C-alpha cells in the first residue's frame, strides 16, 4: 500500500465518482485496488473515530467488490471455497472477512474486507471462465458490481435514525440484526443496505448506482448533519473494526 503523501486520485485508473468531493473535504488518499481511497481527513484521528462512533459516512467505492448471478451461482462459489447459507437477504462472512451478500437465491454480491486486498475477488475473477462444450456446467455469471455500485459505509449509533429520513425500512438494531440485507429505496434510488457492525459500533454498507454517487453522497451528508455527523476515512473504520 502506498504512503499517504498527497496521492492524486486522478493519477490512478480506477476512480471513485466522488473523489473530487473527498479531496475538497481534505481527504488523504492511499492506493487500494488500483484506485485512491480516502484514508483520513484533516481532523485528529481520535476525533474521526469519535465521529464514526456517533454518525459518519465513508466512501469505499474503489475497494474490491463484485457479483455473481444466475443459475449455479451458489454451487460454483461453494466449489471455490466460499461458505454461503440458504437464506436470501442475509450476508455470510468469509474466511478473511469478506462478505457474501445473498441478494436472491441465485445472486451474490461480494464485498471485500476493509483491508481491500482483493485476494478472494481476484481469485474468483481469474477462476470464472466459459467452460468448454455444451451443455456447460451451471456456474453463474460474473456481474460488474465493482463498477455498477458505489460503496458507502454509514456508521454510528445514530445511523438508524438518519436512515429513517431517506429510507422506509426499519433498520433499528433489533429489527435489523447484523448480516441483514435490505434491498430498498434510499432517497428515491434503488439501494442495498447491509448491517455490518464494526466492533461494537453500529454500521451499514450502502450500495447504490455508481452514476448517482454524488447525489446520494449529498443526500446522506445532509441527513447526518442533524446528528453532528461527519465524513470519515477508511482508517477510522479499520480502527473501529479491530
Amino acid at each position: 500500500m502506498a504512503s499517504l503523501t498527497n496521492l492524486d486520485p486522478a493519477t490512478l485508473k480506477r476512480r471513485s465518482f466522488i473523489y473530487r468531493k473527498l479531496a475538497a473535504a481534505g481527504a488523504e488518499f492511499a492506493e487500494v485496488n488500483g484506485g485512491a481511497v480516502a484514508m483520513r481527513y484533516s481532523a485528529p484521528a481520535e476525533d474521526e473515530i469519535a465521529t464514526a462512533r456517533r454518525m459518519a459516512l465513508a466512501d469505499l467505492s474503489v475497494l474490491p467488490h463484485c457479483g455473481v448471478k444466475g443459475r449455479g451461482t451458489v454451487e460454483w462459489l461453494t466449489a471455490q471455497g466460499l461458505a454461503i447459507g440458504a437464506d436470501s437477504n442475509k450476508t455470510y462472512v468469509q474466511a478473511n472477512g469478506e462478505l457474501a451478500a445473498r441478494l436472491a437465491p441465485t445472486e451474490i454480491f461480494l464485498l471485500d474486507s476493509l483491508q481491500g486486498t482483493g485476494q478472494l475477488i481476484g481469485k474468483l475473477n481469474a477462476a470464472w471462465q466459459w467452460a468448454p462444450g455444451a451443455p456447460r456446467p451451471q456456474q453463474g455469471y460474473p456481474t460488474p458490481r465493482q463498477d455498477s455500485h458505489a460503496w458507502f459505509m454509514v456508521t454510528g449509533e445514530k445511523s438508524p435514525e438518519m436512515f429513517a429520513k431517506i429510507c422506509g425500512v426499519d433498520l433499528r438494531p433489533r429489527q435489523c440484526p447484523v448480516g441483514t440485507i435490505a434491498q430498498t429505496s434510499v432517497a428515491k434510488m434503488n439501494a442495498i443496505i447491509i448491517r455490518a457492525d464494526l466492533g461494537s459500533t453500529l454500521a451499514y454498507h450502502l450500495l447504490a448506482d455508481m452514476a448517482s454517487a454524488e447525489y446520494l453522497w449529498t443526500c446522506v451528508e445532509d441527513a447526518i448533519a442533524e446528528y453532528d455527523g461527519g465524513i470519515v476515512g477508511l482508517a477510522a473504520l479499520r480502527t473501529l473494526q479491530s
Partner: protein
Amino acid sequence: MAGMNRLPAPFGIWIDRTQRISFTFEGRQIEGFAGDNIASALLANGQTMISRSFKYHRPRSVLTMAGQDSNTLVQVGDEPNCLADKRRIEPGLKVEAQNYVGSFDDDKGRFTELVERFLPVGFYYKSFHEQKKSWRAWEPIIRAMAGLGKADLKADFHHSYYDKQYLFADVAVIGGGPAGMAAALSAADSGAEVILVDEGAEPGGSLNYARFNVDGTHGSLTCKELSVAIRTKRNIRVLSEAVCTGLFADNWLPVIQGNRLYKLRAKSVVVATGSIEQPAVFRNNDLPGIMFASAAQRLVRLYAVKPGNRAVILAANDDGYGAALEMLDAGIAVTAIVDLRVDVPMTEMAQAMRRAGVEIIAGHAIREAIAGPGKIRITGAIAAPIAGDGKLTDSGRSLECDLILMAVGYSPAAQLLHHAGTKFAYDTGSHMYRPDSLPAHVFAAGSVNQAYALDAALADGRRAGWLAARDAGHSGAAEPPAPTDLGSGGVTHPWPIFPHEKGMDFVDFDEDLKYKDLINGIADGFDNVELLKRYSTVGMGPSQGKHSAVAAVRIVARETGESLHRMSVTTQRPPYTPEKFGHMAGRVFEPERRTAMHHRHLELGAQMMPAGLWWRPAYYGPKSERDRAIREEVSAVRNNVGLIDVSTLGGLDVRGPDAAEFLNRMYTFAYAKQQIGRCRYVLMTDNAGVVTDDGVAVRFHDEHFYVTATTSGVDAVYRQMLWWNAQWRLDVDVANVTAAYAGVNIAGPKSREVLKRVCEGVDLSGQAFPYMGAAMAEVAGIPARIMRVGFVGELGYEVHVPASQGEALWDALMAAGGLESMRPFGVEAQRVLRLEKGHIIVSQDTDGLTSVWEADMAWAVAKTKPFFVGGRSAEIQAKKPLTRKLVGFTLANASDPCPEECHLVLKGEEIVGRVTSAVHSPSLNKVVGLAYVHPSDVEPGKQFDIKVDGGKRIKGLVTKYPFYDPDNKRQEM
C-alpha cells in the same frame, strides 16, 4: 408581568416567567413569556381581537385555544394562515392580522355585514351559474374581500428546511390525554413499543386544565402520576406538540412536529383524540369574549391569562360548573350560570357554585350577546327562558359580562377514525355519534369512544392499550375490564340552537354561515347534509366542520324530519389540521445520474442537458456560441475525429444456453446465427406491435450477448425481459449493466488513427475489424468492449469500459487525439449527424402507436421466427392499410424555415401526420428531417404540407434517406 391580564403562579403551567419574549402584532410591541403562543400573549396584553371573519369581517378572537378553529389565523412574516393559538412566540416575530381593508381596528370590510341580505346562501351558484361572464368582474372584488392570509408572490421565496422521517412502532397512541396516557402505559406494560403523539406542550390533555373535582386537584395529580409512569417506560416515546393528520391504509400515520413530517407506521393504533366542544347558536355568538369553557380554562391554567373580568357561563353539563369554579379561582367574577337544563343535577360542582353564591338560571338560554363599540368586545348577555327546543320566550334578563363561556356539549374528535373507515351510530343516550364498528388494528379510547368520566377514560385507555398491544403481538397480563359507566350521558345537549330573528347567529364561524343560511339552503332543495355542505359551504372552512358539522346534521334532521340514526356527519377526510406545502415537499429527493466523465465535460465548458435522469453534454462552449459550436462539432466528426460520451446508453448482459433464443423472442430480428464478434441491430416491439426500443446486440460468446438499449428505455426493457422470462423459464440470465460501463464513441475519418495509439492487442484495420465488428481488448490499459458501430455514419468505434475507469479512458483518448485536434462533441451535434444519416430515435421518431411498418422498419423484422413479442400483432397490422408512414424529407423551397418537431403534416385540411425530427444539415447545407405522411405521399419526389409556426404552410419534399452518404461508404471505410 408581560401583560395586564396575566395571573400569578401556579396558573400558567406551560409558561416560563423567567424568559420574556418580545414580538410585534400589527406593528405594536407585545411582550410574552417563553411557552406562550401568539394568542395567549395577545390576550394577556389586552389585544382581544385577533382576526376578521371571512365574509362579514366581524371581529373574532379565541374560540378553542386548541388550534381547532380559524378565528386565530394570522400572518407571521411571509407565512400566511398560522394558528395563533398554536404557534409559539419567538423573539422578533412579526405578526399581522389577516383579511381586513384599511386598518385592522377600523376595517372597511366590516360593512359587508350591512349588505348581508345580498349575499345569500349559494351566492356563487346563484350569481354566476347562469352568467358566467359576470364572474370576471366580481372575482377581484370577492378575492380581495373574502380571503385569508397573503402569499407574497414577489418575495424572495426559498424552501425552508423541512424534512420527513419514518417512525416505527408496535402501538401508536394518538392523543395524550388521560385515555391516551393510560393506553400507552398499558400497551407498554404488555411489552409493546409505543409512540404517544400529543398536541400539547406536555401530555395530559384535559388533565392539564379541566376541573375533575371541586378543588381542582384531581386532574393535576392524575396527570403527574401518569406522566411519571410514562417517563420511566423505556418503550414509550412521546412526541409532544405533534399532530397526527391522518390515518391511512395499514396504519400509516402522518405526524407533523415543527418542520418535520413523520411517517409513522404502527402495527396497531389507539385513537384517543378526545372530543371537541360544540358551540351554542345564538345572536352574536361569534364575537370576542365568547369562547368554549375549555378554551378559557386552557388560558387560565396553561398560560395564566385572564380571558375576561366578568363571566356568564352557558352550561348544559357539569364541565360548565368546573369552568365557573376555575374562573372564580382566577379572580374572574361570575355573573351567573345560564343552564339549558330545567332540572340541574346537584352535583358537587353545582353545590360548590351555590356555596360561592353564583346564581344558577336553570331552563334558560342566551338569546343574544350584547356587542360593545366596534363589536370588538361584549358588554352583556340576554338570558331568556326556553319555551321549547330552540324557542325562547320573549321575556329576557340582561346579564352584565365581558366573557361568555359555552359548555353545552361535545362531539368526538373522530376524524382519524373516519379516515380509517369506522362506522358511527347516533347514541340517543349521549346525543352524540359514537364509533360503532372499528376497522382491524384500530382501537378507540376515551371520550372519542364515549368515555367521558375520568375513571371511565382511564379504564377505557387501559383496555384499548392492552388490546392494541395484543394485536401487535404482545400479550400482557389479564385483559383490563371495560369501564362500566362511561359518563357520556348528560354532557351534550341535543339542541343548543337558538336562532334569532335578526340573525348573526352563527353555525359555521369559518364561513360566516348563520342559522338562516342553512335553512335557506335546505329550502333551495339541498336537504341532504352532504349536498347542503357543498351548496352552503358549511364545514368547508379551515376547521373542516369541527364545530359546525354536528349542528348542520341536527338542523337538516329537524327540517327534513329525518332521523339522526339514519344520518351521519359529513365525511371527514384527511388532513385533520391544515398541512403546509413545506411538509409535503420535505427534502428534495430527485436522483440524478452523472457519467464517469461528467466533470471532464464541465472542465471543457460543456453545456449540460438532462436525458432522463442523466446529464449529458449538449455541446461544448458558451451558450452565446451554441450554433457555431454544434456546427464545428459536426464538421469535426465528418472531416476529422470527434469523441462523444455515450455512457448513458443502456447495457444488458444476456447470458446462458438460451441467450440467442431469448433475444429471438424479445426482438424483431434473428439472432440464432449471429456470429461471435459481430453486432446486429435490435428493435423491440410490445405485445401490441408498437415499437418500444432499439439498440445493438453484440455476440461475445456463443452464450453471451451484450445488448444496448436507449438511455431512457433500458430500465423498462430490463423489467420487461425479466417479466417475460418469469413466464418462459428459459435458461438465460439478464443483468442490467448500464451503470457499470462508461462508454465513448470515437468517430470520424481519423478515429482509427487515434484509437490505434492506445489500443493494444487488437487489429483495427478494416479487414480485421470490419463495420459491425466487435472485440474485447484493452484500451489505454483498461479492459474494454469495442464495437464498430456508428450512429453518426462515419468510421467509428464505441468503447465501453468499467465505469470507475471511464474518466481515465476519456483522459487517455483526449491525450491520444491531441495530434489530430480531436474534438469532443455533444448530443446536439450527434442529433444532427444521425439525422443526416436518417437514423431514427425511438420515442422521438416513434410514438405510443408506431408499428414497424409505419416506422419503415420492415427490414428489421425476421418473418420466419416462431415467435417474437409483438410478432402476432405485427402480422395483423401488415394486413391492414397503413394510415401514415415515416419518410425522410427536405424542403421543396430552400428558403422556407426549418420545421420543428411536432409541426403538423396536413393533407388538405386533414391532419395526417407530424414532423418528428428536422434540422438544418451543415454537411448538406439544407434542411433534412423525418415526418409521418399520408401513405399516398411516401414516394420520393412527392410533396406534402407542413404547418409551421404562425400557421404558415410549407412544402416538404419526400426524399430517400440516408440523406448523407446514401451508400454508407464512410462508416465502412
